[in-house]
């Protein structure tokens, strides 16, 4: 391998042949050896090849499209879609246009990604801390979890949940009845919907005021602690404010809340909120799969905080709770956040596996549109733009969070 590399040097360099031509003139020869000249020549070559390649591709594509009579451009997005989508967060019917269908798909992608990120983070942190627990049993269980899920393809986990577990749930008539008027059957998970009545704004107002007051209390408490060293139970106060005020508003407005329970209809349960098995299996699979990676990141992060830090915290008289909250976790987060970001991005990208089980995410809806309109290039451009934007936005947010968390050197 090493000797081959040396040959590469002679053969692979496009300028090397010129060397022979200009052997007699030493000044020219040295120009050939000038790295700047070489790099310019090389780059010009790369650009020329690239332009030629792109031109060839574009030329072929245009010819191919013309041959099969396919028009180009994004006008098709205004055409009537004609197909229905069952999971939708915004109004959509078969009369809506393709553009709206795509938006429904994008929102579905975002919803499953967001839900998955939250769940995966919670499970991942629990398992990651579990792997460092001083309880042997918990440690082993967490290890088994990580090793099992990390080494199985996510698509397989999705299909397992969908065809292996959720498809075996009972039919609608024999639904499992769960607490709080929820049901579980082969059509998914049903739970009551909150229907807010008149005066519900008081609850919202209570919540807003509660949050505002909590922020105010927190800043005052910090100022007082800085000045006098006295502590104030900020957490309990905030909790009281944020829960108590909306509750007060709720009572004052005369309990303006009714629950819409799922009822048995002719075929399905009607009313309430239905989480379909397609969403459920995608969500469960993505969360469990990604959580195994997050657990490892969390473990590495906590282990990355040097032992001296916790010893110093103990020496200062901090009990284990505050030591964890004030010393260990802030430092561990700095190690955890960058790899966590890429796991979040992976989860978002993996949500495109939805197509295998028929959850109408961006990729599935786009595929149907492509099939009806034949606009392959435009649809792929939409895919690329959307996924890249999601990636960039997530990265930006996590970078912002990272700088906020970063060690402030004083």
């Amino acid at each position, binding site marked *: *391998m090493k000797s081959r590399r040396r040959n590469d040097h002679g053969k692979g360099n496009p300028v090397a042949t010129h060397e022979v031509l200009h052997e007699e003139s030493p000044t020219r020869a040295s120009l050939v050896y000038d790295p700047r000249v070489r790099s310019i020549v090389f780059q010009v070559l790369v650009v020329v090849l690239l332009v030629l390649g792109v031109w060839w591709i574009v030329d072929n594509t245009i010819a191919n499209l013309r041959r099969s009579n396919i028009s180009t451009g994004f006008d098709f997005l205004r055409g009537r879609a004609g197909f229905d*989508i069952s999971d939708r967060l915004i109004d959509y019917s078969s009369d809506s246009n393709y553009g709206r269908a795509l938006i429904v798909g994008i929102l579905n992608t975002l919803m499953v990604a967001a839900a998955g990120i939250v769940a995966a983070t919670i499970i991942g942190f629990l398992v990651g801390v579990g792997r460092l627990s001083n309880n042997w049993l918990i440690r082993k269980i967490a290890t088994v979890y990580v090793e099992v899920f990390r080494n199985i393809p996510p698509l397989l986990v999705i299909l397992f949940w969908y065809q292996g577990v959720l498809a075996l749930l009972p039919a609608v008539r024999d639904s499992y009845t769960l607490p709080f008027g929820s049901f579980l059957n082969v059509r998914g998970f049903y739970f009551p919907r909150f229907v807010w009545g008149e005066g519900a704004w008081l609850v919202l107002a209570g919540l807003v005021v509660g949050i505002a007051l909590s922020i105010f209390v927190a800043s005052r408490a910090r100022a007082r602690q800085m000045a006098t060293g006295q502590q104030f139970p900020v957490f309990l106060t905030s909790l009281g404010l944020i829960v108590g005020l909306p509750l007060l508003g709720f009572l004052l407005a005369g309990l303006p809340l009714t629950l819409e329970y799922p009822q048995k209809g002719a075929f399905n349960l009607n009313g309430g909120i239905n989480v379909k098995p397609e969403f459920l299996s995608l969500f469960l699979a993505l969360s469990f799969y990604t959580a195994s990676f997050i657990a490892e990141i969390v473990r590495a992060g906590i282990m990355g905080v040097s032992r001296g830090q916790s010893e110093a915290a103990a020496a200062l008289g901090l009990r284990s709770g505050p030591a964890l909250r004030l010393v260990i976790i802030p430092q561990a987060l700095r190690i955890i956040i960058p790899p966590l970001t890429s796991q979040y991005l992976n989860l978002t990208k993996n949500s495109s596996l939805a197509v295998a089980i*028929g959850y*109408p995410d961006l990729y599935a809806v786009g595929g149907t549109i492509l099939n009806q309109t034949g606009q392959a290039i435009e649809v792929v451009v939409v895919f690329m733009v959307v996924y890249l934007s999601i990636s960039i936005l997530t990265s930006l947010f996590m970078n912002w969070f990272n700088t906020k968390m970063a060690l402030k050197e004083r």
Partner: protein
Amino acid sequence: MKHVAIGILAGAVGLAASAASADTLDNVKSKGFVQCGVNTGLAGFSAPNNQGEWTGLDADFCRAVAAAVFGDGTKVKFTGLSAKDRFTALQSGEIDILSRNTTWTINRDTALGLNFAGVTYYDGQGFMINSKKVPGVNSALQLSGAAICVQAGTTTELNLADYFKANNLQYNPVVFEKFEEANAAYDAGRCDAYTTDQSGLYAVRLQMSSPDDHVVLPEIISKEPLGPSVRQGDDKWFDIVKWTYYALLNTEEAGITQANVEEMKKSTNPDIKRLLGVEAETKIGTDLGLSNDWVVNIVKATGNYGEIFERNVGTGSPLKISRGINALWTKGGLQYGMPIR
């Protein structure tokens, strides 16, 4: 390592890529077989049997085209396609004919750049329900609020939306990428009803774990003329596929079968002589770019249209579908072969 990798790639590309002209017939002749896009598994139309051979009406149509071109019905290779893949596969030249229970619509003829060569099966979309799981349903109009399994990217999906909209009914579409997935989900009870072309419903019913529980509802909600299609812009190849279809119909009309085709060559009937290319100085076959005995080859390979139908979907097959509107025009059906003269 780099060199090796490039070497492998180059070798693989060299072996796999076949550059050819835009002329499909020349291309087909030079590679020695017809590449035919079929359904991945729709009993009666195209499905691999236990030996891995493709059987069915759509598959046999491709054999007929291969017989017309090469005089040998086995010179055909099949590509199983999902509803979503099929048009791209044809547009890109991956396949030469798309014979995959595809509905002829104006949108596909114009915007997707296809040319439909005829209608090998007149169909209509229907619904099937499991009478054990949803008793008392005997009309599609009772399906309000039902979850309905359907395959993505089909006219079926669109008709379904239109039908429920027109009748002001609610429904939950459960959309699958592949035919088999939709079947499996329906069988598992994920949906109350299953919708596809009626012929497909009979085929799907056979694959259910308890076929007798399933009932096909009487409503037909759309026209689904299914036929083979080719790329636009190659009239010669289009003609061959189109006239293969008409040859199948005309031979049935003339009573020429797989069994009696050699005898029929001796017939004195000028129509039959012309059809079988035994008329003196005939140019019908060569004008198509084929040999003059192309019709003989077709019938020898697959039989006439009636034989193909009976064998794959008709009363002699597990599907047991009667000819109905797919009978010849002389018997009150819609199949009408243009005159070969």
